[in-house]
């Protein structure tokens, strides 16, 4: 673990980083909250129905359609806002499911040890051995293209990192005196795992999850871009960008959904960075280990 040694250069960089991370975290939180608000309320106030084709096609941004219209005459702004309501909730759901599944698998593996540990962790290794996006594509394609299947595919590829982190923490806590004491008092392994160990896993997993939301959004949009996620005419950022490929000259069709993805992903990453700092130093070392192990 040479990476955790605090050299002077490292300390200086961290100090500079720390000055900036808190404000960035606040900016991230504001932007993310704004997008979540849009996701919840967009249908109430967007100027046009996101799937209605009433406008002239390929109009540049102007007074009638502030972000222009796409190749069949739909309002890009309305679709962009409606798209937030598709991607963000699904990304949160996806991360939530991955956290639950991964933490559970890792905790059981770490607590039970022996062959249970070996079996579960080899399965984890197996999934992690494949390139994330390619494996997700294969799964989504074989299940049939739809948003629901894209989420399933994304869960399948994203749980292992949580399993690894939670296993390593459980492994280190398993032998602690307070855990052994509670077992000696006669509590069941399940209760010991649930009340004594899992609360300690929550912090690092939360940090990892917040950093993962951005990745999840990118993965879902990517699958939709490839035609494996949202199906037309659903307003989804990835599929909007894929539609823009046909009309390169009409830059507004693709640029705005691209900016939307950029801002959301950056916002959640800022939040994640700040959270990681808050959990310093233990969680920080853990999540670095997890991130370097992930390399996806």
């Amino acid at each position, binding site marked *: 673990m040479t990476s955790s040694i605090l050299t002077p*250069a490292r300390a200086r960089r961290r100090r500079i980083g720390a000055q900036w991370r808190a404000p960035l975290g606040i900016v991230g939180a504001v932007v993310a909250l704004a997008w979540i608000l849009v996701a919840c309320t967009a249908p109430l106030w967007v100027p046009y129905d996101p799937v209605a*084709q009433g406008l002239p*096609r*390929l109009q540049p941004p102007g007074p009638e359609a502030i972000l222009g219209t796409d190749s069949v005459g739909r309002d890009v702004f309305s679709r962009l806002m409606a798209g937030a309501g598709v991607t963000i909730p699904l990304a949160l759901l996806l991360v939530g499911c991955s956290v639950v599944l991964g933490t559970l698998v890792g905790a059981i593996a770490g607590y039970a040890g022996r062959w249970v540990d070996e079996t579960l962790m080899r399965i984890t290794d197996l999934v992690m051995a494949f390139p994330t996006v390619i494996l997700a594509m294969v799964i989504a394609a074989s299940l049939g293209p739809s948003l629901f299947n894209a989420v399933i595919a994304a869960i399948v590829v994203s749980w292992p990192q949580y399993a690894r982190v939670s296993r390593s923490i459980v492994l280190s806590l398993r032998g602690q005196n307070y855990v052994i004491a509670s077992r000696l008092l006669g509590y069941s392994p399940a209760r010991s795992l649930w009340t004594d160990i899992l609360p300690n896993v929550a912090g690092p997993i939360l940090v990892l999850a917040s950093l993962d939301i951005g990745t999840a959004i990118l993965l879902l949009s990517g699958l939709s871009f490839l035609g494996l996620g949202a*199906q037309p005419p659903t307003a989804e950022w990835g599929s909007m960008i894929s539609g823009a*490929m*046909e009309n390169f000259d009409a830059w507004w069709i693709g640029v705005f959904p691209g900016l939307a993805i950029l801002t959301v992903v950056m916002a959640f990453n800022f939040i994640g960075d700040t959270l990681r700092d808050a959990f310093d130093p233990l969680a920080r070392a853990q999540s670095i280990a997890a991130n370097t192990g992930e390399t996806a």
Partner: protein
Amino acid sequence: MHITRTGTVTALGAVTALVLVGCSGGNSANNSSGDSTSLTVNTSFTIETADPGNSYDPTGNTVAKALYETLVDFEGSDVSTPVPGLASWTQNDDATEFTFTIADGRTFSDGSPVEASDVVFSLERIQAMTEAKPAFLLEGLSFAEVDDSTVTVSSETPKLALPALLASPALGILNADVVAEHGGSTDGEDTAQEWLDANSAGSGPYTLDSIDLTSQITLAENPEYTGEHAPGYSRIVLRNVSESATQLINLKGGDADVALDLNGDQASGLGDGFTVDSVPSGQTIFLLVNQDDEVGGVAASPEFASAVRTAIDGDGLLELAGTGSVQATGVIPPGYSGALSDPVGQDLDATAAALTEAGYDGETIRLSFPNDYPVGGVEFTPLAERIQDQLKSAGINVELAPAPFASELDAYVNGTEQMGLWFWAPDYADSTNFLPFAPGLKVGLRAGWTAEDNPAIADVAAEAYAASSTEDRDAALSDFAAQMQESGPFIPLIVPASNIATADSVTGAAYNSVWTIDLAELAPAE
């Protein structure tokens, strides 16, 4: 840490340098502006071999057309009237025997004369290769050499379409002696394809210089050419550029002189300095409504199909297809005999009545289509979205099921789509190529439509196939087209334009639905 960072910087620098080299290489490798006798054409390659006898793909036809000549030819874009190519012809009253006389003085690229034996060899070679794609064109035909310059072609049944069929570039005439020397034979054991993939042995205006089926084909002027369309350039380079947006950039930047696959929006936005030839292609984009109860469900009736037909607003669809495209008036596209003059047009009252008759009550109908295979620059996804929108306002609920061409094709060919959005291109320039839409025939069956479902249309189609006079045939074809629009399961939508865009320094570009473009007609502008 420092070492790692330096390493990263070095790696980044190397990557950047590579990318830059890659880009500049791509841009400058083929800059033809300095050399007036070289021409660069951008197209998305669909070619498997340069051997015409084994090829039946659009790019394959373009290349074969430049390298080889056929007995019969078409002039420019007009595919309704076959004209003499290598030979002129006469036919008997039953249209079962055709006599071809080869024009005087025509020579192959090695200087030897084109003779009747070359014609018989070339056609019998294809006939013998049962696996060859163009072999179906020659079914039921036999060839006989009368003298050095005369060949007779006999058919078992009346074959008015024979001259048009013989204009297919796949039926180009090879130099029999040269090809036989390299494995060519008429006994089905032909092994000449490998040699023909690196060399050409034809009488066309160009010869094959070099070929890479995935990236670039270079043609060189044929100095021995004695025909009508003398080559305008000493070299023609065909480059495989699959994205139309890249073709547009290449054309604008001067890296290409001709772009074959621009869509309507791209072509109309080209501006000064470029010429665009937009002609409706021979292809038709249509909707099919499956008539098989098990597949089609509530949609499986001619009434439902006619409800869809009257619910479609053709102008709204045409808007997506761009310049030069036209509305389809029936399964036979404009320019072919038997084509109807007017499309059906939107009539929502008729739709409502037909829907009641079909017993439709708001069920969701699944519309399958290929989403990665634009036809004539028309993308299917926006088209399907527009169709869904139009049908929704007519009270028909449609769910879209896009899929890659390669994976959806089976479902279409096997007739397992409830509703489908597909296209049909004629195999050769003759209206009988649209008869497979009839019940019980190839395309009809893809819509689960059997001959028992509509015996009347099946009979008219059979009549058109068997006709031995042009008048009878044209009458049967018109009748066929009209009845199909009345009670068929197909809703022909758009005949997309084919846009050939050229820099103003090039003249003579004309779209032809059989070989896309005759490269020999291109010449530098004065």
